């Protein structure tokens, strides 16, 4: 009979310090360089969007919890992280009311209605973004090439994925991979800060805030599927490295798809989930009407999370049957409680 080495002792206990707030602080710390990058290039507008987004996410949560007469938990920082992440994938020029509506819909409908932190089947950030995207009258605000035309960042501010959609990979000649890596591309406030997202993501992986399986298999999925497309027809489809470095893939792999409540919990589940996100991203980029597919890919895969959770779930050992005699009763109880 295999037993676990768990020691159960009466109070007092020593707290190791891990709290929900701690997770949120670590996310903020990891995203700080990315935010700095966005503010450096887009100036006050970036601060405006980030501020409004964080504030409206927290207000949405507080308002809902107040109305529902639940304990108000905005101090744990999870809503603030959602708000920050949404701001980082929006263009700096986006009108503020749009940010507010998106956050209200995302936080209230996708998160709080399902039971709050840890219970949402979809990442609220992704839902917020998708709401803006599928609203025909608002989708124009997400067109990076049109809305970012007035910013002077010292490099060609063009959204590489829109170019890919319009002209095929032939139009990408003036995007060198180094430029993309250094963030010299149009895009969301923080989504193009590849180096800083990578650094922040690795920090979170090292600290154990996110699991390495999802980002790794996400990037692998992008590389494999983009590679297949590219080998099939390199005139229409871009090479895998371009797909990794352009658009939302980096922020998606480390920050959007790793949301605790919407991602699977088992190792193999996570691997398949991440790979599916990456693969679906490339498929959507190639065949859908939208230039970038990261958000929709993650949403789609989140819906399959309950299935992924069944992959390699821990085997439930058959309970041993003991002949019940007065002599064995005490022993059985002890052993079972130890399981």
């Amino acid at each position: 009979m295999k037993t676990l080495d768990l020691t159960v002792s009466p109070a007092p206990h020593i707290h190791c310090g891990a709290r929900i707030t701690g997770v949120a602080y670590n996310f903020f710390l990891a995203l700080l360089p990315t935010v700095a990058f966005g503010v450096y290039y887009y100036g006050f507008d970036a601060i405006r969007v980030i501020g409004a987004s964080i504030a409206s996410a927290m207000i949405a949560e507080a308002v809902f919890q107040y109305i529902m007469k639940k304990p108000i938990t905005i101090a744990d920082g999870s809503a603030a992280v959602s708000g920050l992440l949404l701001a980082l994938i929006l263009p700096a020029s986006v009108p503020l009311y749009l940010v507010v509506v998106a956050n209200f819909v995302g936080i209230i409908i996708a998160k709080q209605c399902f039971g709050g932190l840890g219970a949402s089947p979809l990442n609220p950030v992704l839902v917020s973004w998708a709401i803006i995207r599928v609203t025909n009258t608002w989708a124009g605000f997400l067109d990076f090439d049109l809305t970012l035309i007035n910013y002077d960042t010292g490099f060609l501010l063009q959204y590489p994925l829109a170019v890919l959609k319009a002209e095929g990979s032939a139009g990408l000649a003036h995007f060198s991979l180094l430029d993309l890596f250094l963030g010299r591309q149009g895009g969301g406030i923080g989504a193009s800060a590849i180096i800083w997202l990578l650094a922040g993501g690795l920090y979170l992986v090292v600290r154990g805030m996110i699991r390495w399986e999802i980002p790794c298999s996400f990037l692998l999925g992008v590389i494999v599927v983009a590679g297949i497309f590219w080998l099939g027809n390199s005139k229409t489809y871009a090479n895998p490295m371009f797909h990794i470095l352009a658009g939302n893939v980096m922020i998606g792999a480390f920050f959007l798809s790793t949301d605790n409540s919407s991602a699977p919990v088992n190792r193999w589940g996570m691997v398949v989930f991440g790979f599916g996100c990456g693969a679906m991203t490339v498929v959507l980029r190639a065949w859908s009407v939208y230039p970038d597919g990261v958000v929709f890919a993650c949403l789609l895969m989140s819906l399959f999370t309950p299935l992924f959770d069944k992959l390699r779930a821990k085997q439930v050992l058959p309970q041993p049957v003991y002949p019940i005699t007065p002599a064995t009763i005490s022993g059985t109880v002890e052993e079972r409680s130890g399981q």
Partner: protein
Amino acid sequence: MKLLKVFTRGLWNEIPPFRLVLGLCPTLAVTRSAEDGLGMGLAVIFVLACSNMLVSSLRNLIPRQVRIACFVVIIASFVVVVELLSQAFFYPIYQSLGIFIPLIVVNCIILGRAEAFASRNGIIASGLDGLGMGLGFTLSLTVLGSIREILGQGTFFGAEVMWSSFRPFSFMVEAPGAFVTLGILLAIMNAISKSHQS
């Protein structure tokens, strides 16, 4: 007094789409604007009140075994009446409601009221029940349509109501907007009646 209760029941306690959760197909599909919702509601009032009254007056004549067939024939006839009349007199509304007028035949509320109420009660009570239920249905559809139209198109019964720089939230007039709005309205209804009870 009892008749008044029969009438008002459909307006709040048993308001069809929200409380009985019946007739959701038109509730979700034709509430893109307040006008469509109201038009659909009026058509349903007519069919519901008339079919209830006719079913009630024939209730002792119709054998139990074929009652559903008889109800359906009666309801279908009134639906055709509505379809022809709306074509003749309100053609634009007929155009925008389209297939959903003929589909009133399969609306659960109408057969439900015929079976559950009209086949057991007198003509006046049945008529009032039909009117009340129909009014409740109309009210719900109009409210739903108004919310979706104001947010999704910035208009109310076709008149501009939002400020000039308002960019409509067109998500609301699409199909998912209908589900979200219906869900929120249901939640509000439940919250209100809960606080009434306690």
